[in-house]
């Protein structure tokens, strides 16, 4: 939030870019790119997010403190997802310990999906 008044032209350009990116992400989903479908979808979503945050939310013109708060929020989200995934994806790297309560409870549930 600053005294800076963003010209309408900028807003309209951002709006057109967002609509085009929506069309692009929808179109790309129908083309087989293997694992790059996910990469493309997320890259376009992040681009759209940046456009909204920088221009519609005026963060481009905001103070450094505001920017740090936002980056910290996104960084914490990255920690949440990365560490949870690190746990989830490495669980099979070591042999199961002798059963205690958890495997016997979970196995019938998990085996349905294996």
């Amino acid at each position: 939030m600053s005294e800076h008044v963003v010209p309408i032209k900028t807003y309209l350009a951002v709006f057109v870019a967002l609509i085009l990116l929506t069309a692009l992400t929808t179109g790309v989903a129908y083309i087989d790119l293997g694992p790059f479908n996910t990469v493309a979808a997320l890259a376009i979503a992040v681009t759209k997010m940046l456009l909204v945050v920088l221009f519609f939310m005026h963060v481009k013109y905001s103070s450094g403190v505001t920017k740090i708060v936002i980056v910290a929020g996104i960084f914490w989200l990255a920690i949440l997802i990365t560490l949870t995934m690190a746990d989830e994806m490495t669980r099979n790297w070591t042999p199961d310990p002798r059963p205690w309560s958890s495997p016997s409870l979970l196995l019938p549930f998990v085996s349905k999906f294996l």
Partner: protein
Amino acid sequence: MAAHSRLNDSHAAEVAHQFEDPEQQREADSLGMWTFLVTEIMFFGALFAAYVIYRSLHPAAFEAGSHLLEVKFGATNTAVLIGSSLTMVLAIYAAQTGKSKSTIITFLVLTMLLGAAFIGIKLHFEWFHDYAEGLVPGLNFDLAKYGSGVELFMVFYFFMTGLHALHMVIGLGILTVLVVMTARGRFSPRYYAPLDISGLYWHFVDIIWIFLFPLLYLIGGRYTHGGR
């Protein structure tokens, strides 16, 4: 500086006494709103993290679940929300540049109409349709037809889109208050903080949808079965 602004009547009405000038007050307003929005990032972030894990555990089921959603409605709603974000910034622009009350109100009402259109499309063409097809976990999910993996996907779908829609409804309430405040002549180029921070909230809700749309509707290979 502080003494000066207290002496100046036009300042005193718009700048609370703990701030030196309107600029500092604006910065504090924005920072406070962003702090709240960061808690919202974590709020939705937990759902996103859970979604990522379960998607990696059951990729085929999530793909099948994704194919049950209609891309055309998701894409339309994305465009509708982006349009509402545009009208929101135009309302703030109108206040910043001292346009008439009716101009500000027009843009705010347009924002509300687009927001209501989003919820309408979601309810009428998607959720209602999902219910008719037996896709609502806890109400009428057809486990024999779709399987438990798809049920898990639909749980995520309804929680994520439901929480998002709840934010939209709250946003519509905020916009109603803004329309009343504008009509009472509360805003000027010197003071429009409620418009500005409500705009931040509205755009944030837009960003959540910008991620929900590809995650729920697109990722998972539309090309394989052609989708719908």
